């Protein structure tokens, strides 16, 4: 296969992942083209792009999910390839096909692989045929509550209703008894239809106390694949990951080798091209089952990058350029420990309900071992229309203990005012015995988290400082707002503010 280097690549996404991909492209000397909806003209991914194309109104169904508009933008700007990121069109087979049909390179797997793996039902059938263990359940879609109840009776409650086209934790519901089935099935199908445009839902045995282990793979599209080791993603709320780490604290070297080899076999069975992730569920007894393959770059890819010293976006681009796998399996090893914290605009104290609004104050952590992948900045209005993830903090340490200590330090330095967010949740999580000793399961949050009691107690000294700061802050604010309009016009606000500060602290 001949090598064809890109000069321009369009990134069909928004938020932190669009920013991260564009950073990778620009480092490679490739121009990055952004697309944006009406509410995203001032979003960070647009600000840093070399060119940007408006593709429609705010709802994703009228912009980021409209393949034709994105392909047209690529053709108009002369981009040679499209990187889809995650979410939106990343695992949409017909879109990948349309990109290739338009003479462009889709930086990801082949459309047929996505069709096979993106439909969880056909993926289950394929894996079963390839001898990879799958979770007990149906291989066909179910829409009749009576039939679903019948299947659940057979495999035993609780069961999980899952959208065949689902991903990212959306379109899933646990059903603990027959009485919940009709409503749960209706809501899951509704969510599946709205989020994925496909309401096929199937029933799977719900594994109690599982751990979520996944393996990063890279394939050359010619039948050769390697793994880039595992990640553990068992800290979840609403089936959505919030903290990820690599390596997994739950794998012995033998089990790690076994699970990573199963992932390589999975990727090779479908001649996988690009970066992908094979997800497994690990039972308390040490058995693992294939859950699904995510045919995209994952949200949590940076923990793998930090622990293995790789750049997965660059690897994807190089594979798409026809350069093949950029690493040999024996070159790759895990060094140290990495943790990722997803920063969501949501309220941990109110069932993790989404929050929006303007980012009023933002101070990012720095220092050794700290990486921040962000899609926002101070003054940015977080739009209502998209996923509430604002940024990811990724921290590396020489070992797990140092990685945890360093993460606590960085999380305490991280300041975000405006939308309610989950940084305090992360600080809480890192201090729980079940997290510290690595025994946590996907039920960690529902079992351990108390929404009324997760913030640390304030010491008397801290309370005194807060009360003093608030009173003095208010005094300062009143002093500022009492300036006459005429005086305000004469002096720039910043000068006046400086004078007010000086008066307050020195001159009275």
């Amino acid at each position, binding site marked *: 296969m001949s090598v064809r280097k890109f000069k321009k690549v369009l990134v069909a996404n928004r938020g932190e992942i669009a920013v991260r991909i564009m950073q990778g492209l620009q480092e490679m000397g490739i121009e990055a083209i952004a697309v944006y909806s009406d509410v995203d003209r001032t979003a960070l991914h647009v600000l840093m792009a070399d060119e940007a194309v408006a593709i429609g109104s705010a709802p994703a169904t009228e912009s980021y999910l409209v393949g034709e508009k994105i392909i047209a933008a690529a053709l108009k700007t002369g981009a040679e390839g499209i990187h889809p990121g995650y979410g939106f069109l990343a695992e949409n087979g017909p879109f990948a096909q349309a990109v290739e049909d338009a003479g462009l390179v889709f930086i990801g797997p082949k459309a047929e692989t996505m069709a096979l793996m993106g439909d969880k039902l056909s993926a289950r059938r394929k894996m079963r045929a390839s001898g990879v263990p799958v979770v007990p359940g149906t291989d066909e879609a179910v829409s009749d509550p009576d039939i679903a109840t019948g299947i659940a009776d057979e495999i035993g409650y609780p069961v999980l209703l899952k959208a065949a086209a689902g991903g990212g934790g959306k379109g899933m519901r646990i059903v603990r008894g027959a009485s919940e089935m009709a409503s749960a099935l209706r809501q899951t199908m*509704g969510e599946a239809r709205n989020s994925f445009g496909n309401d096929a839902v199937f029933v799977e045995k719900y594994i109690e106390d599982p751990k979520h282990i996944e393996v990063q793979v890279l394939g050359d599209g010619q039948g050769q694949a390697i793994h880039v080791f595992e990640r553990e993603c068992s800290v979840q709320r609403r089936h959505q990951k919030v903290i990820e780490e690599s390596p997994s604290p739950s794998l012995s070297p033998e089990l790690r080798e076994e699970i990573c080899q199963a992932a390589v076999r999975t990727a090779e069975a479908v001649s996988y091209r690009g970066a992908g992730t094979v997800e497994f569920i690990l039972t308390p007894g040490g058995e693992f089952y294939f859950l699904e393959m995510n045919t995209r770059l994952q949200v949590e890819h940076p923990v793998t990058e930090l622990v293995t010293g790789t750049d997965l976006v660059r690897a994807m681009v190089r594979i798409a350029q026809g350069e093949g796998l950029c690493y040999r399996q024996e070159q790759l090893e895990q060094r140290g420990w990495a943790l990722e914290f997803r920063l969501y605009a949501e309220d941990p104290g109110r069932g993790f309900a989404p929050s929006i609004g303007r980012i009023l104050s933002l101070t990012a952590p720095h220092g050794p071992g700290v990486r921040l992948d962000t899609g926002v900045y101070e003054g940015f209005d977080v739009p*209502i229309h998209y996923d509430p993830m604002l940024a990811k903090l990724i921290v590396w340490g020489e070992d797990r203990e140092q990685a945890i200590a360093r993460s606590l330090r960085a999380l*305490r*330095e991280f300041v975000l005012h405006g939308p309610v967010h989950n940084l*305090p949740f992360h600080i809480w999580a890192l201090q729980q015995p079940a997290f510290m000793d690595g025994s946590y399961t996907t039920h960690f949050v529902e079992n351990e988290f108390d929404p009324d009691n997760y913030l640390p107690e304030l010491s008397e000294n801290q309370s005194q*400082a*807060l009360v003093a700061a608030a*009173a003095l802050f*208010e005094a300062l604010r009143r002093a500022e707002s009492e300036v006459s309009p005429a005086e305000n016009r004469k002096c720039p606000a910043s000068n006046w503010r400086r004078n007010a500060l000086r008066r307050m602290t020195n001159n*009275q």
Partner: protein
Amino acid sequence: MWMKKNYALNCEGNLHHSIVARQGGRVRVQISEDSEPVDVDFQPVLGGKAVSVRVGGRLHLIHLTGTNSKGAVSASLDGRPVQLTVMDELRAQALESMGDVAGGGTITADIPGLVVELRASVGQKVHQGEPVIVVEAMKMQNELAAAVSGTVTEIPVTEGQSVNPGDVLVIIEPEPGG
């Protein structure tokens, strides 16, 4: 001579009547009227986004953002958000008499979202716990149920409409004795 000013403060649900006294460059704070005044070293930093406060020999970097005219302040220290409201005593007294209007039969949005489905119509009888409206926020569909049994008298929203926290979605006239 010390210049004193009184403030009404609510820190994490604890009410304080605090007094700030200043003389020259010195600042003293009485957290509550009956507590001892403590010396405070106070420096606005980071372009006004934070203050460095020294109390009793301990230094704290406190980030503060004023969010509305009712004195709500976003504060945080060491990664911990703190609920604060602060205003001078005169304004606090003026606002005190204002109360809330609420009704058990009124369903309001508690998060911003999109009305995706109305399950009830005006004039319809509904039972307590029955889903009457579906609001989607951040790709999650949330069924909102009637808090009381009664008759739907008003639905001021339509399917496809964006709603904000506090917006009235459905009004239900409770059944007598229901």
